[in-house]
């Protein structure tokens, strides 16, 4: 007896569907049962950019893009992970490979420098690697004044070396086509480096000259951090007044409110309450705040 023509296709479809269900289910159960190997994701198969470049033949620009996506995933994944000990060890090598494969990859230098300088736990806190990356960018594209400015910026913001920062801003100003405000920035840095006002000017210039949304957002976050530092300075002044009146530092915000010095719980610009350490009187944003950690970290405690 001949079977109808549709029996075989239907049987194959059913069998295939069943097999797909089996392997997908197995995969789901396995992933839920066994944790992914950390070593697998933390591995740099080929550590040398030069070797990867050789292996990429004429597709080095595309391979650089793949490494760039890996940089974003690695940095973002590590930053967002709930791990107690965040490890950013591969960030520098990944950025090095990306820029070796595609020396003209402008975003990799600027973004990469931001990622590398971010202090722990938001980044590895390696301004030295960021400076090296930007210097590599200058070697590849000496006419990009932004890289000189970014190096000056790292010395200013992260290393608090205002003299070196000012000299890098001056070098940036000397590059043909550089923005006009770099000279005044250099002068301002050398004269009043470290003040909140000069920091505000610096970030405002970065914000105004940003060539992409990510850097603009980052500059806006820094400007907001400076607003938080302004707030904290005012709170410190109030706490000093309380200390004079009560003969001791405040034990919490409620005491400042009861004393009539504060109208309500002080909130940072993101809407989270500021933290007052009753042990030493130090004030800061909450560790849960998007603004944490603040630049230069802890302000002088009240008791000092």
């Amino acid at each position, binding site marked *: 007896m001949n079977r109808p023509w549709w029996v075989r296709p239907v049987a194959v479809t059913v069998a295939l569907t069943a097999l797909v269900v089996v392997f997908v289910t197995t995969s789901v159960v396995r992933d839920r049962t066994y944790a992914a190997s950390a070593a697998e994701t933390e591995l740099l198969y080929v550590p040398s950019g030069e070797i990867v470049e*050789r292996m990429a033949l004429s597709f080095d620009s*595309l391979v650089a893009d793949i490494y*760039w*996506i890996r940089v974003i995933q690695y940095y973002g994944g590590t930053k967002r992970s709930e791990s107690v000990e965040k490890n950013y060890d591969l960030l520098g090598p990944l950025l090095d490979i990306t820029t070796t494969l595609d020396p003209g990859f402008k*975003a990799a230098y600027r973004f990469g420098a931001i990622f590398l300088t971010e202090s722990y736990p938001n980044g590895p806190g390696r301004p030295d690697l960021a400076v090296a990356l930007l210097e590599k960018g200058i070697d590849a594209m000496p006419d990009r004044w932004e890289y000189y400015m970014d190096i000056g910026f790292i010395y200013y913001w992260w290393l608090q070396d205002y003299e070196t920062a000012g000299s890098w801003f001056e070098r940036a100003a000397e590059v043909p086509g550089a923005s006009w405000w770099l000279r005044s920035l250099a002068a301002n840095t050398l004269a009043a480096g470290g003040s909140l006002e000069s920091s505000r000017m610096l970030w405002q210039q970065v914000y105004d000259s940003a060539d*992409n949304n*990510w850097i603009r957002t980052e500059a806006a976050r820094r400007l907001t951090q400076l607003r938080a530092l302004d707030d904290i300075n005012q709170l410190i002044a109030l706490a000093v007044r309380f200390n004079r009146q009560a003969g001791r530092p405040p034990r919490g915000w409620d005491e400042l409110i009861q004393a009539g010095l504060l109208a309500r719980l002080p909130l940072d610009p993101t809407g989270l309450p500021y933290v007052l350490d009753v042990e030493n009187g130090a004030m800061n944003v909450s560790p849960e705040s998007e603004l944490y950690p603040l630049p230069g970290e802890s302000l002088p405690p009240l008791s000092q």
Partner: protein
Amino acid sequence: MAVITRIAVHVFKESIRDKVLYNLVLFAVLLMGALYLIGQLTAGQDVKVIKDLGLAATQIFGLFIAVFVGIGLVSKEVERRSIYSLLSKPIRRHELILGKYAGLVLALAVNVAVMAVALYLVLGYMSLIESEEFKATWVRPAADPAMLFALFLVFVQLALVTAIALFFSTFSSPSLSAVLTFSLYVVGHFNADLRNFESVVDSSVAVYLARALYYVLPNLAPFDVKAAVVHGEPVSLGYVAMTTWYGAAYVAALLLAAVFIFARRDFK
């Protein structure tokens, strides 16, 4: 000439019918998929990545067509023994070789052209949806006409690879032809090392031998201007013309050698 044209048209139709259409669909799906995914992953570098991906995919897909179709142009006719019926017709051997080459190169030209249109459509769409403020940060417009230089040189390189595959196809098996063609393709990208051999060895004989190999082996690296156009660096018309001239001369030499070998093959 009429015979060559007829063979070319036949090979072109066969290639389009069999392989190239699947290839184009895959390319379109890849680009569309990439457009959505990459926007989420690259921190604002999506236009660069789409350009890199589009140009590289054009080259990779074309390379596979050039090699895998190119190696079968002659050797499969021999394996299937259809070469006997072909040669029994009023077709001269050189006409067969040149016609088959021209047909596959025509198929590659259509392939590259359609991929270029798809790439420009995707980039044009990206240009439409992005804000003016964001577009002001681009070094070059998304649908940058300069990419045509890169696409054209990709095509010339593919024409050269096809000639290499066809050359090997005239005297060896398809699998061996594929290995040899891919090997030459890889060697072609490391060629510049041979030119600077004196910096790693002391022997003058080795240096001269390396220098000779540098000039004799195909140098494929100059055909790659993809990164330059993506970064908005200028690629001069003179450079493109010179590189095309080099490619054309090399192709002519390979075809001459292929015709010479094929003419002497005994199919008894």
